[in-house]
């Protein structure tokens, strides 16, 4: 019998999250973010968090909610351009920020989950990102050594999941979620639809359940669109 990872809700899923912890949160912009769990983090009122997430949400949604409540001490992200409160806290020095090239962020999370403590990448060589990091040439091209990232809790959002924690993501809502799922000491997955064991095709699963410790079906997904861009019908 497969190992069950099911918990009742965001409250149970986020049990044990404490102030000062390091969290990974999946999503790209507001796409594929764990909405239910973020609300629960607001409810918990935990502070001094280090959050690893590609973006920081917008002022009133996503990780912006945690920024409003001053719950985040440090952000590790690649792009934070859509959040005025973020920029204000960062420029005023209230918020520590570690900006990382997007590909290095993704690969560092994967490395953390895959037991690869460090790897070489060309990204960031010769820039602020490379300062203080080991440099080495491979095939005549300079690279820098980047180290793995892990988290006390990784919180991800999937489209479908089964009771064993197997996850399937939808379209570009996949983004950082699979790598972060690998890198959490405890990985929480919230899904739009929780299905019984055996309902997912084992060939089509993106994140194997071995990486997931807790899973629940979320409610009331808002799925806010940041840049609604359309064309007119001809």
């Amino acid at each position, binding site marked *: 019998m497969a190992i069950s990872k099911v918990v009742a809700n965001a409250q149970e899923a986020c049990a044990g999250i404490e102030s000062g912890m390091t969290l990974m949160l999946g999503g790209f912009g507001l*796409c594929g973010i764990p909405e239910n769990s973020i609300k629960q983090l607001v409810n918990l009122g935990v502070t001094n968090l280090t959050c690893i997430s590609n973006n920081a949400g917008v002022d009133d949604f996503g990780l912006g909610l945690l920024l409003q409540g001053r719950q985040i001490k440090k952000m590790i992200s690649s792009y934070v351009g859509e959040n005025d409160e973020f920029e204000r806290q960062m420029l005023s020095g209230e918020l520590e920020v570690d900006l990382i090239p997007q*590909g290095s962020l993704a690969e560092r999370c994967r490395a953390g989950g895959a037991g690869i403590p460090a790897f070489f*990448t060309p990204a960031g060589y010769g820039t602020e990102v490379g300062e203080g990091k080991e440099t080495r040439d491979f095939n005549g091209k300079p690279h820098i050594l980047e180290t793995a990232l892990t988290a006390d809790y990784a919180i991800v959002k999937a489209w479908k999941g089964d009771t064993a924690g197997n996850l399937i993501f939808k379209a570009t809502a996949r*983004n950082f979620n699979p790598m972060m799922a690998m890198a959490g000491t405890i990985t929480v997955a919230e899904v739009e639809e929780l299905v019984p064991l055996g309902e997912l095709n084992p060939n089509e699963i993106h994140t194997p359940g071995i990486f997931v410790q807790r899973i629940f079906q979320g409610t009331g997904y808002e799925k806010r669109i940041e840049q609604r861009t359309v064309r007119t019908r001809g």
Partner: protein
Amino acid sequence: MLDKNGIAKRIAQELQDGFYVNLGIGIPTLVANYIPEGIDVEFQSENGILGMGPFPFEGDEDPDLINAGKQTITAMPGAVYFDSATSFAMIRGQHVQLTVLGAMEVAQNGDIANWKIPGRMVKGMGGAMDLVASAENIIVAMMHTNKRGESKLLPACSLPLTGVGCVTKVVTNMATLEIKDNAFHLLERAPGVTVEEIQAATAGKLVLPAGEVPEMSL
């Protein structure tokens, strides 16, 4: 003098059959509107799609389907979704043949700065550092001068760098320039722009061709 669409149209001439292309936010995004006839290319967006299509019709927007600029998009037949690690495996592994990016500054040695104005603008580099560090064919699409009329083609970048010695070509509202041998080599003038105007607007070392400078054909 070109507008943003004109720059995009000129860059679209660089597309070759079979190219996988990554288009940055802003002017580069517009390049997709000018794919030459008879050419098959596929657009990669680093948030996790290959085979990106045009914006959806109103009412067809899917919040789970966006591009790297967070805009709602569509997927073409044959499209594929993937995670961010796989996406940058494509980029870092040089499987993408052409990268088009905006920039705040480009230096005559190919350095590019487009992610940070110290103490003022702190948006982050997103995927730009991975793109410029990896791609072999990087075209910058930008205005030749900034809002204060100052040249963006410089002897050296003054802003924090995004990548070093990586830009191969620059297309601006005024000109097409190739970067090599530590200089901007003028290839084409935009319609109605004189060589003298380009010289005046270029702070970095500008090398003119032996003969006439042709006007872009758009």
